[in-house]
């Protein structure tokens, strides 16, 4: 057990020394890996932020419930109690009188409203929904539309649906991008390790003859691939943070034009670790493929 740990420590040490021994090569490889990881990672962060915006509760998931014009107070009370039961969020009752008063207060409308023989507006509820997924909202809308004396239920969900569809598409595109760049990372590691195996042919051949196991010979390369990939992941995280810092001011300006405040949410520690872990895993995979192929000629 002790020997096993010592051998792993030695393999890791040798991998670090190899990374350190050729700083320029290492730097270039890290950059290539980092760039390959940065694009999907940055896309992920942006999508994540877009989804946050979609889930923003300020007035986006509103449902307007219009009663029949001849609905009585009692009918309104019934709907109120049903809404309470459904517990689907906060709601506000807008009586027909209130609605008319509001309409009157807007410019140009006062005269028209005054000329009406009677109030044409219905009682209404404005419901702010807690749920956001379009399918569930549609189910809720249909249910409420079936309640007594409800004339019309309008779900302001078209754009949520569109955003959702866009996010789905973007997520798919992101996965494809990640797949392609992930393969690129594996290829880069594959090539680096292949060159290393060639450069160390003498050592590998000798080690075999004097009793090294396959695991002993492969181990430093695995560590090298994983370390290189993991470090590349960290550099990629740095690039993502840098990109977000550059985007912060324009995003704030854009939000200000829409009269809101918005700040991009930066990736957390868990996401950085996941990125480094992904890099390490892909690097290890590249090393594994490369060593398996390159070592065949020593048999």
């Amino acid at each position, binding site marked *: 057990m*002790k*020997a*096993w740990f*010592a*051998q792993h420590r*030695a393999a890791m040490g040798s991998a670090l020394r190899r990374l350190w021994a050729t700083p320029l090569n290492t730097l270039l490889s890290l950059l290539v890996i980092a760039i390959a990881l940065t694009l999907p990672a940055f896309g992920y962060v942006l999508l994540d932020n877009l989804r946050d915006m979609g889930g923003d509760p300020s007035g986006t998931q509103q449902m307007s419930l219009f009663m029949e014009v001849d609905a009585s107070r009692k009918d309104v009370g019934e709907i109120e109690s049903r809404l309470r039961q459904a517990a689907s969020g906060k709601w506000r009752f807008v009586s027909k009188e209130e609605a008319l008063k509001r309409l009157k207060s807007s410019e140009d409308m006062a005269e028209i409203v005054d000329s009406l023989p009677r109030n044409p507006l219905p009682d209404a509820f404005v419901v702010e929904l807690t749920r956001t997924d379009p399918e569930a909202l549609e189910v809720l809308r249909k249910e409420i539309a079936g309640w007594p004396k409800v004339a019309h239920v309008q779900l302001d969900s078209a754009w949520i649906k569109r955003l959702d569809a866009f996010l789905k598409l973007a997520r798919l595109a992101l996965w494809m991008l990640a797949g392609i760049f992930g393969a690129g990372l594996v290829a880069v590691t594959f090539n680096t390790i292949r060159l290393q195996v060639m450069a160390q042919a*003498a*050592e590998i*051949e*000798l*080690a*075999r*003859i*004097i*009793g*090294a*196991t396959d695991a*002993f010979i492969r181990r430093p390369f695995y560590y090298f691939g994983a370390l290189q990939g993991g470090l590349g992941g960290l550099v990629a995280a740095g690039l993502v943070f840098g990109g977000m810092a550059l985007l912060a001011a324009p995003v704030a300006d854009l939000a200000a034009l829409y009269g809101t405040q918005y700040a991009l949410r930066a990736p957390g520690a868990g996401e950085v670790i996941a990125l480094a872990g992904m890099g390490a895993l892909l690097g290890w995979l590249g090393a594994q493929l490369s060593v398996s192929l390159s070592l065949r000629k020593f048999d």
Partner: protein
Amino acid sequence: MIVASQLSKRYPGGYEALKDVSFEIPAGGLVFITGHSGAGKTTLIKLMASIERPTAGSLVVNGQNLSALRRSALPYVRRHLGLIFQDQKLLFDRSALDNVLLPLQIAGLPRREAVRRAQAALDKVGLLAREKAMPIALSGGEQQRLAIARAVVNRPAVLIADEPTGNLDEASAAEIMTLFADFNRVGVTVVIATHDRHWVEAGQPQVLQLDHGRLV
């Protein structure tokens, strides 16, 4: 102890390097394998070192039948053999000490213990003062002694050398042979392949003479 019975090695393409070779080397023996070049000396050495496998017959080294071993068992057999090559196979990117350390790293020895033993092996071949030197800075004789230090650092029961004096001048070659005799005196079985009759005639060792793959 090394026992070969009806050992044959045929290379892909049909060339038969060894034909029906049988012999027995007792534990603690000193044996020379001689013959013209192409007689099969190196092939026999490679079979004994488990670098290559016989195509027929059996070869038992240290109680292990090499022709019947699984591939995954070979590394552990090789660790109990000390191998010395004509071209030394030193690693030129590391110091003399690190060259000798390699077999111990492979065996998984703790660093401190490994360094102690590597220094002892270097001392035995008279190179302790040069432990930090790179192999390229060593003379031919010193390089061969370094290779011997690497071969004996694992304290093998069998030392196998292929033309260890091939590229050396007389004085250096004598030093090397003295070292082999020393190891043999403390009980190590020593097998040396050489075309140089000079060393064979000097003592009374067992001699395996090969001629076109056959023992004569």
